[in-house]
């Protein structure tokens, strides 16, 4: 037991001290934080005000284009040709030209610009024009825009699950999906990254020819388990550091740039609101109106719904089973990866043995969408108790609420699967690590398993 601790320590320390580990540990959170920060930063960069000149021959839109923080509209008096020639001189981002038509309402416009026009600008202009034209059409057919506004309804469908005890709980399918999928993906990534690390470690020991020196001091099984546990701890350390660093970076950034972020968010919100077809009266919304929409019953209710459905997920069960399947799945696959590493002489020979191991894992992710749609179907049930697929599939199912019998069955089978896999891997490992320069096939592996040791 003392020796296995020594092995775990070595496996852990040599990896944690490696330059690649340190670089990955620092780079990972920066990349993750970049996901949050870059959009804000880019928005800041793009924040310069864009000046759009309008030449409206129909005369319908002049006062409809309301300037925002980022887009300023300017009515041009000159004709199109002069404007086009002066586009750079007058610092115009674009010229919007709405030609006169024979139809009662115009259907098109032209946007001239020196550079490829920004999609947000395009979207904003199109939206205002559409609303205006819709309003014109409605009043032409005698419909009062106010009636239409009152017709607009937002439906909240609360899903309420009746548990076996007859209690009712609100649930949100979307949230369950998100939680399950994130857990499943994390397990998948962890197994692949660190399982492969175990395999490479075994191959390294074999090619360095140190393995026979070590197994004369410790049992091959101890060496294998020491490696698997050591690498698991490396992985957990890296994950923990990533989470901590990401939180630190993001929160530091937030506190530094909180003003910019809130203004960015509010401007986003404004644009979003103005794009809502609710404001059929042509963009002339007083600001209280926005406030009303924000604080109005609709949004409030959906916030409450989300809050309630968060409570509906049994996070104790989710977290505990996540830890269990995270570690259990890794150990199961780690043992199999170690067995593969022991059977080959170099990483290039691993392909043929990798396939049967990676297929169930990849299949779990491929089927994730299907399982989320039918979290209680027979496929979901069987895949979530089969040890090679259960780490991912069970985690996808759990946020939807899984009968305890299924969960316990899955856990028991996972433990049995883990024991079986380590037993099998141990057999292959102890023969494989001492075998050099031999092309191994499945028949050969089977012989190793049946050797008496």
């Amino acid at each position, binding site marked *: 037991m003392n020796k296995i601790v020594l092995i775990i320590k070595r496996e852990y320390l040599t990896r944690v001290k490696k330059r690649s580990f340190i670089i990955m540990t620092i780079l990972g959170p920066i990349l993750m934080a970049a996901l949050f920060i870059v959009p804000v930063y880019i928005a800041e960069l793009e924040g310069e005000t864009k000046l759009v000149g309008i030449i409206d021959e129909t005369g319908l839109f002049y006062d409809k284009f309301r300037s925002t923080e980022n887009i300023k509209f300017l009515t041009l008096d000159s004709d199109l040709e002069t404007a086009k020639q002066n586009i750079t001189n007058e610092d115009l981002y674009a010229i919007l030209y709405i030609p006169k038509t024979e139809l009662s309402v115009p259907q098109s416009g032209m946007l001239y610009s020196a550079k490829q026009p920004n999609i947000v600008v395009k979207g904003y202009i199109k939206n205002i024009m559409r609303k205006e034209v819709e309003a014109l059409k409605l009043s032409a057919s005698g419909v009062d825009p106010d009636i239409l506004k009152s017709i607009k309804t937002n439906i909240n469908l609360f899903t309420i699950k009746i548990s076996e005890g007859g209690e009712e709980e609100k649930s949100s399918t979307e949230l369950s999906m998100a939680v399950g999928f994130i857990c499943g993906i994390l397990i998948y990534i962890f197994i692949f990254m660190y399982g492969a690390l175990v395999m490479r470690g075994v191959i390294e020991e074999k090619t360095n020819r140190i393995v*026979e020196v070590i197994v004369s001091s410790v049992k091959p099984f101890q060496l294998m388990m020491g490696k698997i546990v050591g690498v698991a701890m490396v992985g957990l350390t890296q994950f923990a550091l990533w989470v901590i660093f990401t939180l630190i970076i993001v929160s530091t950034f937030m506190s530094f740039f909180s003003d910019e972020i809130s203004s960015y968010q509010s401007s986003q919100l404004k644009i979003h609101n103005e794009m809502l077809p609710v404001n059929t009266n042509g963009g002339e919304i007083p600001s209280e109106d926005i406030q009303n929409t924000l604080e109005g019953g609709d949004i409030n209710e959906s916030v409450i719904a989300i809050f309630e459905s968060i409570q509906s997920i049994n996070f104790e069960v989710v977290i505990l089973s996540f830890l269990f399947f995270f570690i259990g799945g890794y150990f199961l696959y780690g043992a199999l990866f170690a067995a593969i590493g022991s059977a080959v002489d170099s990483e290039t020979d691993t392909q043929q043995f990798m396939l049967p191991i990676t297929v169930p894992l990849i299949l779990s992710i491929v089927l994730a969408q299907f399982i989320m749609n039918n979290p209680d179907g027979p496929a979901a049930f069987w895949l979530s108790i089969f040890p090679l697929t259960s780490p991912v599939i069970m985690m996808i199912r759990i946020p939807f609420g899984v009968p305890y019998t299924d969960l316990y069955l899955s856990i028991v089978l996972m433990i049995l699967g883990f024991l079986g896999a380590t037993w099998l891997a141990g057999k292959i490992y102890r023969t494989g690590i*001492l075998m050099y320069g031999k092309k191994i096939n499945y028949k050969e592996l089977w*012989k190793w398993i049946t050797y008496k040791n």
Partner: protein
Amino acid sequence: MITLFEAQNITKQFANHKALDKVSISVPGQSIFGLLGPNGAGKTTLIRIINQITAPDSGRLFFCDEKLQSKHIEKIGYLPEERGLYKKMKVGEQALYLARLKGLSKADALKKLREWFEKFEIQAWWNKKVEELSKGMQQKVQFIVTIIHEPELLIFDEPFSGFDPINVNLLKDEILRIKENGGTIIFSTHNMASVEELCDHIALIDKSKKILEGRVKDIKKEYKSNTYEINYTNRQKDLIEILSNNFKIIEQAKEEDTFRANIRIMNGKNQNDLLRELLPYVSIHSFNEILPTMNDIFISKVKENE
């Protein structure tokens, strides 16, 4: 002399071939035991069984009259033929790790390692990575970690490969010194010269079976062919004319100042009979019995076994 290690009727079957077929060896304490045999004879399998890396299908193993068990691992030191070190690890760190796997405490291991590093004059390597060392340097480190826990039984599989002649001598001296201090060594090699030089006992394994075992001296005696080498001068007649047919001239040659001949004695005659026939015609300078080399014995036994 007490027996330190004994293997009785060890059989090991792999899928397609029998690696060991009822092999028994008995290794006396405080001696060097040569384990010889052609490639693929089963030596490495036997060594791995002694190290408890693999288990035999049948047969019994004893260490100091006790059944061989896992507690004995710490009393055995093993230098395998396929040996190496973690390339990316520092020499000192690695030596410490391997020593501690053998059951030494950290303080003990450090102290002993420092002594040995000093003895081999390699202190400067302590903080170097293994990959920066030459092959011979790595072998030295490997040797140290094999013997660091002062085991009662040492097993060396081709220990001299990768060493230059100076370091081979350094190693040989160390091995002999270990024996002096009471250690027992099982020594597997194809280098018959070093077997002659070092081994007290040998066992020869061929095609999974032990075909010869015993004291080197006894074996040589047993396999001697009653051949003598004579250096003489004053050659008055050709030896063929002198000797009766009880003696067979195997080889004759003229050296610078003397003549040399190898003669086998047959038909129950002895060396005095030979001398008696020779003395009237030649003056003898030297007269030696030719003992077979281990190389000869190895080759003839293995050929015989075909």
